[in-house]
């Protein structure tokens, strides 16, 4: 799935020429009624509150911080109401002409930004929340983690697709990669407290299905995990810088970045009781709250 670097001279030229041209004026912001989320297993809310033994990649779309909703089964089982961006949009802007697309797919990484964002363009989204990069830092081997240049090129390729294809006035909201070191730490806590045996679960499922040896491998030293965290931080810096650049240079679209997702202090009740790693529905609920409040429609 990995493709080569796609940073082109055309893009660089556009950036240079428009930097001064974009004054303070922007096209009016469109209502975020056509939501199209870009991301990975966290956007899909894998194992947030429901788990299927025979399908360990168990999307809980109803619990997604971005696309979550509430239907019959969620009512029957008394599931957590995550009050997702989707639900908040309906509350704030009404239900007419609403669309709720999830382009995010478990296992996706920065190389999937372009195809997912092309889907957002195909859906003519007016609001694109982006939470991607966990599978860039979560790898089998430390040398599988992309370089800064590769990560940045993948991000730029995706944002270019949005810049040239989304309706004028659309909003792109990029969220920092979650601090996966904190999620690992919580798994350790849950095991030692006797609530759930996370090491057994990681060994049985995660290593085969969501490879994240760079954080979860029992052979890792503390320095190994801290190294992975340093890549987490470096990629977030790239996200912030590139988003700021697009916001400054594109007069037709609105770009925001927040690091609330990275800073968020996850606690035991906010990590999945099934895989000890993905955010639980309660974690998704808080992700929705903090990102919405910090975002362009939260004021």
């Amino acid at each position, binding site marked *: 799935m990995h493709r080569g670097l796609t940073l082109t001279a055309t893009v660089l030229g556009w950036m240079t020429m428009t930097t001064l041209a974009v004054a303070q004026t922007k096209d009016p912001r469109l209502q975020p009624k056509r939501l199209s989320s870009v991301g990975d297993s966290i956007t899909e809310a894998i194992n947030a*509150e*429901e*788990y*299927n*033994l025979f399908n360990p990649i168990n999307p809980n779309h109803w619990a997604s911080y971005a696309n979550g909703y509430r239907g019959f*089964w*969620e009512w*029957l*089982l*008394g*599931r957590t109401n995550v009050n997702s961006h989707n639900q908040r949009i309906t509350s704030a802007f009404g239900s007419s002409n609403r669309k709720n697309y999830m382009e995010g797919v478990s296992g996706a990484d920065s190389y999937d930004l372009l195809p997912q964002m092309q889907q957002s363009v195909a859906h003519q989204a007016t609001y694109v929340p982006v939470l991607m990069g966990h599978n860039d830092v979560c790898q089998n*081997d*430390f*040398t599988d*983690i992309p*370089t800064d240049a590769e990560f940045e090129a993948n991000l730029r390729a995706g944002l270019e697709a949005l810049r040239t294809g989304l309706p004028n006035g659309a909003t792109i909201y990029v969220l920092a990669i979650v601090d996966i070191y904190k999620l690992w730490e*919580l798994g350790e*806590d849950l095991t030692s*407290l*006797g*609530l*759930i*045996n996370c090491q*057994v*679960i990681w060994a049985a499922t995660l290593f085969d299905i969501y490879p994240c040896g760079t954080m979860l491998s029992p052979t890792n*030293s*503390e*320095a*190994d995990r*801290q*190294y992975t965290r*340093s890549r987490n931080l470096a990629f977030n810096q790239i996200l912030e810088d590139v988003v700021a650049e697009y916001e400054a240079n594109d007069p037709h679209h609105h770009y925001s970045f927040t690091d609330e997702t990275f800073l968020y*202090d996850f*606690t*035991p*009740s*906010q990590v999945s*009781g*099934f895989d000890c790693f993905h955010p639980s529905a309660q974690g998704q609920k808080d992700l929705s709250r903090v990102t919405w409040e910090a975002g362009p429609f939260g004021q």
Partner: protein
Amino acid sequence: MRRLFALSLCLGCTQAPPAPVDDPVEDPVVARIGDAVIRRSEAERGVAMEIHRRRLDIHTLVRREVEALVEQRLLAAEAERRGVTVQAMLDDVERGEPVDDADVDAYLLEHGLGEERRERARDYLDGRRRIERRLAFVRGLEDAAQVRIDLEPPPLPRVDIDLEGAPSRGPADAAVTIVHFGALSEARSREVASWIEAVRQRHPKKIREVFRHVLNPRDELGLQAALLARSAQEKDRFWSVHDRLFQRDGALRQSDLQTLGEELELKPVTPEAEARTRDIVALKGELEIARKSGVTSPPGIFVNGLWVSHSFGRARFESRVRDALASSSVREPTRK
């Protein structure tokens, strides 16, 4: 209302919650009904797992903060002693010889990686070495300062599960009550049922088994099985359904339920919409009990009100049962 707490208390389990005492500070009265009172502890027992989760959250937040404060203070004191800023000190600590080609060669060889990974491997090894120096430095400061963190996580609570109307078998005054929150369609619940059956066989006079329904999402067959079992319960045949469904081979099929329903002369498995809605609403109440007890999906196990995770395996479950049996035998003389 029949509650597990009441049962475990009257049987004298060693870890049973203390009886309410007249303590307006530790256990205040939170409601009055005429002359009767409700104390805080009584209300908390019903949602003990939810409260426990929140206490764990608080414990985690505080522990992280304590660890961060300890590190900040140690670094600040050491930087002051050296007459430099913390950042300058850490930069100096992390500085050192970069990894050499031999280190990179060894890593590539060990991990079966090709030459194209050489630079990434070097970046990783360099980064890790810098971090190792910093970690060793901080550890040294902690040792020198004899750092000790006195924070204990909250203990696992004993949950007061609402057992009103739940099917049970075994002596009503058994020393140990095992509550199984399960789905009759589910493999892990079937496994738990077999664990419980084994300990019941070993201690027939000392163990009581109680079943509560909990479902996996979109498990239509599980839902139908639960409704069938509730219908069987009305005819005092719940355990026939339970045992037949858990002793079957392979995945549950619609025809299994149909056959079982006919054999036991129960309600149709797929009743009319109105009856189904009524039964679902009743089942919803039972699922709420699971949620309130801290169980959101099958299986959930409680031994005398103490949570046992299926993920720790059969040995942990049996150990918890042995502990409960031992506690009850220790307490028996005092009961008499």
